[in-house]
């Protein structure tokens, strides 16, 4: 399905799981909540090399997360942000 599940500005949570295969979600981001900064379009997701995974192309999003939510004792300015690209199947809506 090509209609993006999420829209710009929506709050999302990044899944906290570690499949035993190549995936491109850094541990520091797993389980974190951010907002959708942009919808990037359909891209080949790296877990397609998992045998039996039938869906190679999925919607990709850029997620913006406040640094103070990522790191305890973050030594910077409260407004600092981190932005990463996360695929659709790693995201769920968050409150």
């Amino acid at each position, binding site marked *: 399905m090509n209609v993006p599940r999420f829209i710009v500005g929506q709050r999302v949570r990044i899944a906290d799981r570690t499949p035993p*295969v*190549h995936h491109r979600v850094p*541990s*520091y*981001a797993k389980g974190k909540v951010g907002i959708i900064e942009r919808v990037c379009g359909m891209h080949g997701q*790296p877990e397609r090399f998992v045998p039996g995974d039938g869906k190679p192309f999925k919607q990709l999003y850029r997620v913006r997360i406040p640094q103070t939510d*990522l790191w305890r004792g973050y030594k910077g300015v409260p407004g600092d942000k981190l932005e990463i690209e996360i695929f659709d199947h790693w995201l769920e809506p968050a409150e």
Partner: protein
Amino acid sequence: MSDAEKHMKRRPHDIGGKAAGPVDRAEHDTAYWEWQIDAMLRLAMQKGLLSDFAELRDGIERLSPDDYENLSYYERWARSLAIAMLAKGVVSDQALQDRVAMIRQRHKAEK
């Protein structure tokens, strides 16, 4: 997942946020053999032996933490590509080992 399980499953490349030392800003020329490894990766993809970088990244991520730590950037790529080519039967382990020995001999002779 418990913290212990998380720690065990985290692959050696997944280092964002880990404690580390100052950044060494010294510039290093890329050695010719490193250009050759890089070219080999791209040509292997161009010629259809690999679909894209995901396969190679997977190989690098499966290196032991010690290997990941001790191998240089292009050494990791070389290792991963060799593993992929062996797995696909493009080259045999014997042929690779024989050629390594031959190259070592060549280097000795050049000295």
